[in-house]
């Protein structure tokens, strides 16, 4: 970490009323320096490197060369659009499921848990103490053929419904879209719950009382007061879930099949197995821009700028 040794000089106690000296004015920038260097080296440089890779042509043997070959983008998109679509679909479903599961839980923790609040919070975060990989592998066991869970779903004829919907196959759950979405939902649920909890917890309890006092029934109070005020949490929760889920490949890899490959899996295999670096880089950029556009539209639509 040679970059960090260039840390700013220790901050002199700032004189309060005297006109600021030049050095004092520059202090904020000095303080920003480590962060900026960090971003430059570990974010901007790799981005530039990948951007240049995406417009290179050549082969591993002969070496790559920048030829401004933008066709790679078009080729990648036309070949892998189903995986893109699937990524958006799976990540979107997982986000919706996370919201449906996470909101009541966050609400409970924020308003009803009382002295259990800390315990439930720990339970929400506890899975993070285990590796992402281990947690996902655990789901492989849970959803394995003939496991009690799958058996129960089968007995209850739920699998008939899900198979009819095309998200499971026969009496199998593993290696189906349902398994992948379940894995994504499980792995990203805390990212939904924590921001939701934070914004719910900030709501002044007297606002609920005021709404009740002004003739709002409990459900109306929720719709007109609690939910609108929790929008910052809903927006950041859905973003924190959707963005990593859309690029995830571990869940699709461990719980899915070749029919459930997401764009993350394609990028991973292009980079590490097929070694087609330009295509892999182009796919990464397409994914990034697609997410950026979706997120921008989403934030515009939910109109939360003045709420945060």
């Amino acid at each position, binding site marked *: 970490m040679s970059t960090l040794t260039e840390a700013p000089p220790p901050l002199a106690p700032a004189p309060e009323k005297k006109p600021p000296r030049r050095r004092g004015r520059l202090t904020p920038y000095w303080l920003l320096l480590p962060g900026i260097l960090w971003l430059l080296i570990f974010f901007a440089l790799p981005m530039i490197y990948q951007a240049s890779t995406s417009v290179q042509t050549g082969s591993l043997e002969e070496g790559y060369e920048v030829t401004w070959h933008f066709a790679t983008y078009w080729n990648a998109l036309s070949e892998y659009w189903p995986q893109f679509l699937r990524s958006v679909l799976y990540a979107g479903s997982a986000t919706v499921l996370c919201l449906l599961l996470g909101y009541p839980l966050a609400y409970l923790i924020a308003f009803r848990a009382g002295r259990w609040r800390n315990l439930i919070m720990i339970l929400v975060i506890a899975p993070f103490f285990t590796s992402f990989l281990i947690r996902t592998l655990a789901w492989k066991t849970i959803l394995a053929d003939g496991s009690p869970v799958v058996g129960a779903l089968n007995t209850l004829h739920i699998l008939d419904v899900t198979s009819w919907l095309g998200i499971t196959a026969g009496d199998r759950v593993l290696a189906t879209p349902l398994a992948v979405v379940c894995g994504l939902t499980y792995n990203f649920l805390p990212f939904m719950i924590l921001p939701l909890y934070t914004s719910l917890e900030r709501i002044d309890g007297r*606002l609920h009382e*005021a709404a*009740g*006092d*002004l*003739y709002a*029934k409990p459900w*109306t109070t929720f719709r007109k*007061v609690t939910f609108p005020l929790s929008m910052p949490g809903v927006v950041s929760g859905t973003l924190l879930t959707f963005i990593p889920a859309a690029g995830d490949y571990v869940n699709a890899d461990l719980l899915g099949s070749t029919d459930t490959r997401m764009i993350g899996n394609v990028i991973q295999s292009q980079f590490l197995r097929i070694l087609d670096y330009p295509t892999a880089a182009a796919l990464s950029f397409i994914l990034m821009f697609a997410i950026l556009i979706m997120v921008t539209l989403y934030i515009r639509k939910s109109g939360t700028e003045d709420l945060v």
Partner: protein
Amino acid sequence: MTTKDSSGDVRLSGISKTYGSFTAVHPLDLTVPQGSFFALLGASGCGKTTTLRMIAGLEEPTSGTVFLGDQDVTALPPYKRPVNTVFQSYALFPHLDIFENVAFGLRRRGVKSVKKQVEEMLDLVQLGEQARKKPHQLSGGQQQRVAVARALINHPKVLLLDEPLGALDLKLRRQMQLELKRIQTEVGITFVHVTHDQEEAMTMADTVAVMNAGRVEQLGAPDELYENPRTTFVANFLGTSNLIEAEVDTKAGDDIVLKAGGGKLTLPSERCSASTATGGKVLVGVRPEKISLVHADDAGEIPDGRNRITGTIADASFIGVSTQYVIDSPICPELAVYVQNVERDGRLTPGADVVLHWSPAHTFGLDAAQDIDAGTEEEAA
């Protein structure tokens, strides 16, 4: 209050509230007549806010019944009660603009065209221009008026105000007191106002209930409470009182004669809330501004029939309209006397011997079994 309509009466019958082993409100009976401005006054933690919240339905009483008019509303949730509250620190909806905050109650009751009503209400509280602003863009006083408008627009039978002026600075508070009083007179709705500020309660309310430790100590018109307090708490909490320990000596007609130190004090028996058996202990009370002060050399000029005490000036502070003296007397240490600065006697300086005298009609008698310091600032601190 001339109408016989009683649909806006608030009647509390045997109402109480306990939290575990702590009793916030002891069983309480209270009637607030339609159209009156009623204040619940007390220090923090005396149960006044809990009482208010039980009327609003935000707190469930442990026992007892709440009536609005003839309707028993004890079991009704807040949204079904024809009562609205102005909350402490207002609880305005931060995501809605002023117009929508005020329209909230109307919309919840399914009123279709709210525009005219909301605009009229905003005009009443002089906020017509601010309709499209968000609450955080308004000053404290403006937010306070929004909170009042938001509650009043629903034409509640009773408006509950929970320390509504607590967050405002002194000047604005005085202004809003008059404003609220004006609005109350204009709309004629029953107001129940919770406050810890005795001046505020006395300025605004027709009837004040002084609460202490979960009980109503005394209830009455502000002047009646002030002139004739019945407990040491009321005597000390509302303004300042001099309380002198005395013993019943004789009864003379409608008056009681008491022994205090070497002297005698007279007290009309209807102004004594203590037992008047001979030899019984009584606390004799008198307000500092009722006392006249003369130099000991002029003691002969004091008319007959007045209560008198001799003492020495311990301290004198000049505060403009009046001078506040602290007098040490063998009968009672640290008597407070407020003298209007009309013609100041230059001899009345610390160390001077003086005679205090006042009309027996301004004297009140309290049960001596009480804590003599209840309700004073020293006790609260």
